[in-house]
């Protein structure tokens, strides 16, 4: 404990000039998870604009929106006169990123993080970019500890539950998550498997496939919280997992963003996974 504190103090001392430098830069973030990191590091005052995937925390609503991560406008971003743009590798079009860089904006493109390890690494990277390495390290340590606890709890279950993961953008675009998705990665973090492991990516939901899937738990990720109306999907309600309450309905940015709230997402999912007992009783 004492050595940890000393480490933090040392780190703070080392990066102190950096913190001063960071204090007056103008920052634009384009990726909800990265915006969350900036907030968790207490640097929200640097933000002059965010993209439309940045919806948390709600304080962001007042900031100018530069549009969608995958269609970043050159002039729109430049007009905010940012010193730095931090975004993920999902950002597009490439040409506009290059132009911003040419116009003197420091453009940082971070790799997508689809594991707890990569997610924490990204926190550290953002901290480094903004001169808050020590704060980032502290945040990472805190998150790491909670994640470790969750990992142990999930391991203790002794089996990998099968989870039906639904991605809902309104009632009509309802997709089932398959392999090679952030959904699969999230489930893996809590020692669980995706129900439709033979699907690649997200595919339109087949009502019959839902009925036949017999999952141990159901997770519904909503792109707009509260938008998914379960009454339109009676098949889900017919599943044992639904009836027995092994179900979760939450914001897709929380569940799939792999930001600082990853641990909350893991906890929420882990909560609804049945232990061995629950499975045996069915």
């Amino acid at each position, binding site marked *: 404990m004492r050595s940890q504190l000393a480490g933090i103090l040392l780190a703070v001392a080392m990066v102190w000039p950096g913190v001063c430098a960071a204090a007056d830069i103008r920052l634009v973030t384009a990726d909800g998870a990265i915006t969350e990191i900036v907030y968790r590091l207490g640097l929200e005052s640097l933000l002059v604009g965010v993209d439309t995937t940045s919806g948390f925390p709600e304080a962001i609503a007042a900031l100018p929106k530069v549009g969608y991560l995958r*269609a970043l406008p050159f002039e729109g971003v430049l007009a905010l006169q940012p010193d730095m743009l931090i975004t993920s590798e999902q950002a597009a079009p490439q040409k506009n990123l290059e132009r911003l860089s040419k116009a003197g904006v420091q453009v940082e493109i971070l790799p997508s993080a689809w594991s707890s390890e990569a997610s924490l690494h990204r926190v550290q990277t953002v901290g480094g970019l903004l001169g808050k390495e020590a704060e980032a390290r502290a945040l990472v340590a805190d998150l790491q500890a909670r994640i470790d606890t969750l990992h142990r709890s999930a391991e203790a279950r002794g089996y990998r539950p099968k989870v039906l993961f639904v991605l809902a953008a309104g009632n009509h675009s309802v997709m089932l998550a398959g392999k090679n998705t952030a959904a699969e990665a999230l489930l893996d973090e809590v020692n669980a498997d995706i129900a439709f492991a033979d699907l690649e990516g997200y595919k339109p939901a087949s009502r019959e496939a839902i009925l036949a899937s017999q999952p141990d738990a159901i997770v519904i990720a909503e792109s707009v919280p509260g938008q998914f109306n379960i009454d339109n999907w009676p098949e889900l309600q017919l599943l044992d997992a639904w009836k027995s309450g092994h179900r979760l309905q939450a914001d897709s940015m929380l569940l799939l963003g792999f930001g600082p709230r990853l641990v909350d997402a893991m906890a929420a999912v882990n909560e609804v996974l049945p232990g061995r007992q629950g499975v045996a009783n069915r």
Partner: protein
Amino acid sequence: MMLTPAGRLDAKPALLTLGSVALAVALVSVSSGAYPLSVADILRVIAGKEAADPVASMVFLEVRMPRFLLGFLVGAVLAVCGAVLQGLFRNPLADPGLIGVSAGASLAAIAVIVLGNTWLGGWLALTGDWALPIAAFIGGSLTVLLAWRIANRSGQTAVATLLLAGIAINAVAGAGTGLLTFYASDEELRSLTFWTMGSLGHAGWDDLVLGAPFMVLALVLAPWLARPLDAFLLGESVVGHLGYRTDTVKKVAIVVVGLGVGAAVAVSGLIGFVGLVVPHLVRQALGASHRIVLPFSALLGGTLLVAADSLARVVVAPAELPIGLMMALIGGPFFLALLLRTRVM
């Protein structure tokens, strides 16, 4: 404004007016945007003064100028291609989308987006950054050729068959797009959606270098079609009776549309309604003669698209609306109102 005895606008004053409007729209377009550029800034950039702010210079020279030029060219070409198809098919509702050119071009582009990492890896390696635009252009041109092959029997091309071929090609291209959409990853799907909506948000000199030669060629060939297309309005057989080589006229028209629409879709995605609304407006105001319709459509189409794009990039600034969406928002209700008002199509 003076009206002719037929209740139309007089062509010369109309040309002056539209030309002035086009010029005004051009000035507004290059001087407006999310990034603040004053007229003084622009003048300094144009004058090449060393005092010019390098960022202002970049915004004006590398972003707004190519975007304005590309927008104008795409609008002009789409409107002219719409007018040519409408004349050829003798149907005021014919549209570049109709014979499947747009669908073919977009299918090829979507194939590159979705299959670029797997089956079409070689294509990506070969074409690099240009993979998407070149594919869209090839797809559009091949679709015109395909429609031509299907419809052309023993040297004669029945327009009805060509239309049916277009419907079939649209259906097949639509199915192909649907299938690719199904296999697309989440990420590919989203970039695909934005591409199919049509956008000038990435426009640069490289897009102009790629698209402009084809589009300019289409615009240069089109006037040759004006008189024969007038004859087409009386009927396909009348074209021959009036002394034009019907099949040659049709071939040139198809080449013009293939070049123009293929290149336009390649550089800006799917932008609808320009080809439909603009020639219609011109005909209502100035008559159906193609010697009037073609040049006026080019001017009005370019002006309209640039105006819509200027609006699209300030209305939700600092974000931008996709221009395709913008055109649909403006063009859709407008065209419906037009249909309800005129009744006679």
